[in-house]
């Protein structure tokens, strides 16, 4: 359905899937632009939040694709300035989380999302195996995944001297429980 109506979305649209998954109705946005005005990274986004919402309101496949391929959705810091100031109380970062997930699922994620994703995956892997974040392991893992081997090589020795780098991971006792937790959430597939 390419009618352009932004009240009832067809099942094929990203707007419909967003509503099903998050409960957020895109029609609530009336394009005041307050989200983009307060967003600390809007100036670096190809599509600021209000434009993402406007495009999705059309329910057109080419616009949905444009949103899923955008770099901007990966720059959202989830600082919640937008949702706090939104006169319609639209939970914009929650929608951004869902759109990123869809971009990954449909293999449309922007190439520059690679490093950001590498970081989050390394982060979660660290927790899955040890229960707590192992910062040294996280950074090492991130370097391998992102191939930014020289990133922050100058910072680590300074942190070590200040006692801020624990060289060994903190292992929780119930590590099997953590594996189980991951298997029954993100690992459900």
């Amino acid at each position, binding site marked *: 359905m390419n009618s352009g109506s932004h009240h009832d979305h067809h099942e094929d649209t990203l707007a419909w899937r967003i509503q099903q998954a998050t409960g957020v109705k895109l029609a609530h946005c009336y394009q005041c632009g307050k989200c983009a005005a307060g967003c*600390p*990274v809007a100036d*670096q986004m190809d599509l600021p939040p209000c434009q993402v919402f406007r495009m999705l309101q059309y329910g057109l496949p080419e616009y949905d694709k444009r949103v899923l391929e955008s770099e901007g959705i990966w*720059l959202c*810091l*989830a*600082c*919640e*300035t937008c*949702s*706090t100031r939104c006169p319609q*109380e639209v*939970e914009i970062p929650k929608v951004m*989380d869902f759109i*990123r*997930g869809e971009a990954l699922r449909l293999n449309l994620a922007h190439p520059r999302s690679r*490093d*950001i994703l*590498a*970081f*989050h*995956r390394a*982060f*979660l892997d660290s*927790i899955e195996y040890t*229960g*707590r*974040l192992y*910062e040294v392991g996280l*950074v090492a893992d*991130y370097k391998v995944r*992102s191939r930014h081997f020289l*990133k*922050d090589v100058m*910072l680590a020795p*300074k*942190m070590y001297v*200040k*006692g*801020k*780098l*624990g060289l060994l991971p*903190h292992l*929780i*006792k*119930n590590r099997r*429980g*953590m594996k*189980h*937790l*991951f298997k*029954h*959430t*993100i690992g*459900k597939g």
Partner: protein
Amino acid sequence: MRIGYYPGCSLLGSSREFDESARAVLKALGVELVEVPDWNCCGASSAHILNHELSIALPARILALAEQAGISEILAPCAACSNRLLSAQQELEKHPELLPGIEKAIGMPYKGSVKIVNILEVLDRLKVLISVLTTAPFRKKVASYYGCLLVRPPRVVNFDRPEDPQSMDLLLKAVGATPVEWPFKTECCGAAFSVTRTDIVAKLSGKLVQDAVKRGADAIVVACPMCHSNLDLRRAEINEYLQKEYAVPAMFITQVVGLALGLDPKALGLHRHLVPVAFAETAGVQS
């Protein structure tokens, strides 16, 4: 006073001075901390990006462990942790249909009975005691920096005012400091982009360091490990972006209160900062 304690991962590593200073200050104020046994990471800024259920299950396990340990109120000094714990608790309240799946994942019952508080809330309760016990007033101009996660989203955290909050300013006044008026109290520092998009962190944090200096602040006071890392560990990148040599230190609120209470700067972890807290040594001598 006895209260549950969830330090979180940052407080074991890159922000251990937050843990050290929180424990030292609360001990001095007669608060007994009961650490949640075998706690795990809350998922912080990564879990919710990749999986919604995981972002609920990780905090739910922590809260369920606290329930089992008989903890009715839990202090999470890290702003990200307290925000994630609150988010998960409310998500489960709003969507009870998620509970069976989450209980299966964590392998424990979850009641949702634990009250979650941040460090400013706990210090605020003790404010009168803090002023009475202040032996070395912190007579400095300070920029109180709340960041995002303590005050937003208001429907989740329900704490202070989302724009121009006051709780930290009042605490700082109680220990003799003078908070400056500034518009960056709740601006984002760049948070989890510290490693992946350091350029964005340098720019966002740079703006607020610049303004704090312009308003004559002797220190920027924070209550979040991510804010602190970006303002302290990333100062070289910030200064490079600004083409300046700003040396204004970033301090945790617990370190400021600790100095005012006359505690040893070393016990407060002040020597761990990359941007030195130059006036701390003189403050320590007085005690």
